[in-house]
């Protein structure tokens, strides 16, 4: 991926990363099968930006985010954080590197230990590293509670005393106690009430500004991504469909999947009617993903070639890349073979 970024070295760089998970076959000795959760993904996240990963459930966005911060070892490819190959590090250095990268989880009801007090939850990362005294930790927790908009006295209460939004604030405090540079927010508001979404998102943005953090923001909510992310990727079934600056993608979506995704988002704007592109069918299983383009089965404008030939990433404009035969075009030989003829998305399989 080429980008005229002012920073020559990106904070995080992924190169041809694939993550496969083994699944048990239907019978005791049947061949092992693999879920291809992420396939051949390359991307760069530069310092200080908010980078969006968008896609439907099961498209591998969480797995990709986990691979970024060392929670899932990729089956292939490299992840470089500050120029260092994360997964080649020795355990001690690996642990040190992960200090710089933290995560905010989706569900604040299951990501906080109900038997820990708020103080114990927030200090946990410091405590595990064992370098701070009790007084230092207390002071730090106090400071963070104030930063995330909670009361100092809340320190001795338990997660069950708090609402969803407050719990997410606790989760945020925990994630920044080690002063990370890189924070992965995995659907940080989707489990919360609508009226507190804005509070939490604004809090995240404020913290980013005051602490100079880099965010990777995983979400299925396109409106949120558009509003907070500078760069983004659209994923489908483990692969990147379109990537680039979010301004470019939202202004001019090129991939048929991006277009469909954008048009499927229901807007609360009642004044203007919109044409909706309705996709047929469901996301196929990532166990045996279709050959060629992974989207062809549901694509309204699929060509015969899309079924067999995987598309390459092409740069359409600065900061805007797309993986689609409709954009990159087929070779003369392929056109001669009749691969450019349209297929109806229902036929074949």
């Amino acid at each position, binding site marked *: 991926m080429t980008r005229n970024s002012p920073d020559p070295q990106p904070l995080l760089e992924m190169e041809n990363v694939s993550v496969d998970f083994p699944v048990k076959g239907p019978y005791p000795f049947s061949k092992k099968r693999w879920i291809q959760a992420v396939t051949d993904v390359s991307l760069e996240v530069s310092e200080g930006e908010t980078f969006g990963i968008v896609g439907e459930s099961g498209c591998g966005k969480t797995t990709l985010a986990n691979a970024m911060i060392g929670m899932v070892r990729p089956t292939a490819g490299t992840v470089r954080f500050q120029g260092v190959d994360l997964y080649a590090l020795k355990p001690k250095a690996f642990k040190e590197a992960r200090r710089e990268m933290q995560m905010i989880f989706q569900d604040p009801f299951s990501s906080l230990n109900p038997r820990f007090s708020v103080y114990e939850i927030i200090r946990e990362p410091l405590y595990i590293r064992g370098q701070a005294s009790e007084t230092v930790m207390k002071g730090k927790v106090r400071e963070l509670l104030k930063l995330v908009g909670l009361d100092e006295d809340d320190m001795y209460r338990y997660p069950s005393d708090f609402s969803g939004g407050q719990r997410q604030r606790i989760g945020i405090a925990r994630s920044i106690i080690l002063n990370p540079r890189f924070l992965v927010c995995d659907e940080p508001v989707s489990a919360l009430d*609508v*009226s507190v979404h*804005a*509070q939490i*998102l604004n809090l995240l943005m404020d913290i980013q500004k005051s602490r100079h953090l880099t965010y990777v923001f995983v979400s299925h909510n396109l409106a949120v991504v558009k509003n907070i992310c500078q760069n983004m990727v659209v994923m489908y079934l483990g692969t990147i469909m379109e990537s680039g600056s979010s301004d470019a993608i939202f202004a001019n979506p090129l991939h048929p999947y991006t277009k469909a995704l954008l048009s499927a988002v229901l807007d609360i704007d*009642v004044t203007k009617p919109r044409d909706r592109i*309705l996709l047929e069918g469901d996301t196929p299983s990532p166990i045996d993903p279709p050959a060629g383009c992974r989207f062809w089965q549901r694509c309204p404008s699929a060509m015969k070639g899309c079924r067999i030939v995987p598309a390459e990433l092409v740069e359409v404009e600065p900061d805007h890349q797309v993986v689609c035969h409709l954009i990159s075009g087929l070779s003369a030989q392929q056109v001669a073979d009749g691969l450019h003829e349209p297929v109806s998305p229902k036929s074949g399989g």
Partner: protein
Amino acid sequence: MADTVLGVRNLKVAFPCPGGVIRAVEGIDLDIHRGECAALVGESGCGKSVSAQAIMKLLNTPPAVCRVDKLWLDDLDLTHLPDRQMERIRGKHMAMIFQDAMTALNPVLTVGKQIDEIYLRHSRLSRREARQRTIEALELVEVPEARSRANSYPHQLSGGMRQRVLIALAFACVPKLIIADEPTTALDVTIQAQVLDVLKNMQLVHRVSALLITHDLSVVANMADTVYVMYAGKIVERAAMQELFLEPLHPYTHGLLASVPRISDERQPFVQIPDAVPHPMRKPAGCYFHPRCPRSNDPCRQRMPRLEGPDDGRAVRCWHPLRQPHEVRS
């Protein structure tokens, strides 16, 4: 009103708990007209699902305590109808679409069997005829290869397909009223669009009234004709859909609409409503929204306003609405 399919007057639901009483629903009135889709919108814990279950008389009493002055479905008075007779109404005259299709369907029966059951229970059909109707019903909700899918178990279907099966189930007997409780919350956006389309089509084709329960304003904007906004157990605003979105009157509705990020927005901080929904056992005195409200003053802290407005049009429960309901064109 003659045209009212579902009428509810002063519905109250409470749950006595060890530490006090949770008043989940505090006297709501609903009027749903023929062929209309009304939406009950609110955040989690505002009592919207409990209201739906109370209308269907699905709540276990005890622990719940339900009171209603009057409840009627078309020409049937349900106010004091005993359980045994409600059984004949549920499924035939009013049906419910649940949020989570995986738990709403029986995992050990094929989906075909589960739809057959409705026909066998409510009309005199043979098994073969019932199955035929089931397949037609599945085709209507655009389940591909309905004949073979009828023999699948719920776990063999995708989320979107399961939700379609639930819609087919609900519409099986062409009821007078469908209650859809968060029908698409568990689904992805592209699948949500498909399912909402199916739901809207079915509703229009059969001219069935619907009560849509959701927290998602964008779903409301695409589905509903009338909207009831609920907050902490009370209806705070009632309006036709367009009017509500163009000109909300209650500060809560206003804040809620402003805080929803839109694709058309420019990059800027999100508009936020401070604090969170009150705990159902510790609701504040006066107007329940006053601690979060930018317009609140003394009367708001002391007395709960009434839902005021013309009988069947715009109404708002607020001492200081953004505009008085009668000033707004209706």
